[in-house]
């Protein structure tokens, strides 16, 4: 098994999941779809976390993607989920491209907090926009897939299938990207930016590129999240949403492109169980699990799977 590239192994796992999913209860399908959406955002976070950057504002692109889906469906009547994914990713990427001109110069805590400021600005704008439903947000209509209109029982399964296909595709592309010179370059920027620049690489451009990629991923995650829930509101841009993404990034670890999805799944499981078992203390359970992972598994959950030395890809 281990001789196969990570992308294929991951593909097999996803295929197995998909084959079993028609027999899964709807709430579990929903949880898996949300985990897929979060995983997409976190995959982007992982890219710049490799360069030592943590963003407390990735919810900006998640929310932008979700609102793109919401607006396009309601105003233009486009409800094909693949088209929506593309448009949301484009919106996230475009926004990240613009913000990136400013943000790519910042490092450390300033990168995180400045991106937080931008997401809080979007939160403020959306909250005050009466036409966009202000704090209540608005509903997202049912979607179609290439002309196929899934019935009520099939909706969740269809969306999960789409999400799984997207996950597989982007993890292949991201894995390829990390094997290109850009992969080691990110680590080099983290280790010593000035030396990296002496070698002739531009740290700023690399961070900008990765930031746009993360924006696209977060936009697509927002589209899947919005379609799965069927409703969007400004809290998608609030800092606590970004906090959850950072939470999953650190908990998952940066060992592989699969790690973010594993992390998002574990997060979803903890959240679902904690919320149904003890509605008043679910945050405490999440916080305690986060601290436990940081203290006990310095390289995240992925280090449990990557037993072989040097198996990290």
């Amino acid at each position, binding site marked *: 098994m281990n001789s196969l590239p990570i992308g294929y192994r991951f593909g097999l796992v996803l295929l197995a999941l998909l084959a079993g999913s028609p027999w899964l209860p709807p709430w579990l399908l929903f949880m898996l779809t949300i985990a897929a959406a979060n995983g997409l955002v976190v995959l982007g976070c992982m890219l710049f976390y490799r360069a030592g950057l943590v963003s407390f504002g990735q919810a900006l692109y998640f929310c932008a993607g979700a609102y793109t889906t919401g607006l396009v469906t309601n105003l233009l009547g486009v409800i094909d989920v693949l088209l929506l994914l593309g448009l949301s990713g484009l919106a996230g990427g475009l926004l990240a491209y613009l913000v990136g001109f400013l943000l790519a110069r910042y490092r450390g805590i300033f990168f995180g907090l400045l991106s937080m400021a931008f997401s809080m600005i979007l939160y403020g704008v959306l909250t005050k926009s009466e036409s966009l439903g202000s704090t209540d947000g608005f509903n997202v209509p049912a979607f179609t897939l290439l002309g196929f209109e899934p019935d009520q029982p099939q909706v969740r399964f269809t969306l999960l299938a789409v999400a799984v296909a997207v996950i597989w595709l982007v993890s292949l592309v991201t894995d390829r990207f990390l094997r290109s010179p850009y992969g080691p370059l990110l680590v080099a920027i983290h280790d010593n930016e000035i030396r990296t620049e002496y070698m002739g690489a531009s740290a700023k451009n690399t961070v900008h590129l990765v930031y746009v990629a993360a924006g696209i991923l977060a936009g697509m995650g927002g589209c899947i999240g919005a379609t799965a829930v069927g409703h969007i509101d400004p809290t998608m841009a609030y800092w606590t949403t970004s906090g959850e993404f950072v939470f999953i990034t650190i908990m998952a670890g940066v060992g592989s492109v699969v790690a973010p999805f594993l992390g998002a799944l574990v997060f979803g499981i903890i959240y679902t169980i904690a919320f149904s078992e003890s509605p008043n203390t679910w945050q405490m359970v999440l916080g305690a699990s986060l*601290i436990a992972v940081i203290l006990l598994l310095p390289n995240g959950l992925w280090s449990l799977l990557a037993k072989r030395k040097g198996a990290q890809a």
Partner: protein
Amino acid sequence: MEDLMFILMDGINFAAWLFLAAVGLTLIYGVMKILNVAHGSFYAMGAYVAASTLGFWFDNNMPPFLSYVALLVAAFVAGFIVGPIIERVLLKPQYDRDEHLILLITYGLFLILEDVLKLIWGVDPYFVSQPYELVGSFELGDMIYPSYYLLMAGLALAVGLGLMLLLNRTHFGRMLVSVIHDREISSAMGINVGRMFAITFGLGVSLAALAGAFTAPTVSVTPGMGVEVIVLSFAVVVTGGLGSLPGVALAAVMMGIVRAICVFYAPELELFVIYSIMALVLTFRPRGLFSIAEARKI
């Protein structure tokens, strides 16, 4: 002219609150280089402690004007019990790790504390407006203004000046300044850096609790009240320059006045004008207004 007065008073009021809420955060960052996400939870803790203290105080017919002293004492007692314990147990073993990991630990702490507060004080709101009503209000032209806000402004001024004196004029303050500049040399000179950290964290937590305690009489104390304080105080602290005391003061005044202008002329901007100021300041001064130059790592 009336408008100007109103904007000024409103601005000073909000600036005082921002300063009180954020000053503990910058103190902790300045000394320990930790951005404490749980800061807002300590603020909320202060508000709840104040609610209980005031409830007890007025139920037992204690002298009403001493209730302000009671608030002060309660905030510092709570801060210096909770702060050093958390620092010793949770943060101290992690000091040599990446700043983002420590930040995430305080994020986990924030999640935990949110529920701990609910477990202790329940989910029903508390109303303790006695200290607010006690001082009444005063007239300024045609305008009636609650005197309690003047008290808050005075408190902010006192805290700011007190910290300046503490840092510049006392033995403890000088040791703290030397720890800020160089931990290793300070400890080589015989300063117990670990103890300084514990005291600083206790002081920072107390200041957050103090802000919460004195805000409690003006609002209803409810779960989740600290969540927004976190981002607001982050914005103030980063705009001022992380770890800078004059920076926090200037940023708080700037944001307070601009927000008051927005509330008056363009209320739809009110929610995000603070973050816009932050983004604008960081665009032109990437490390905030009063930033300390740092040596580059070659």
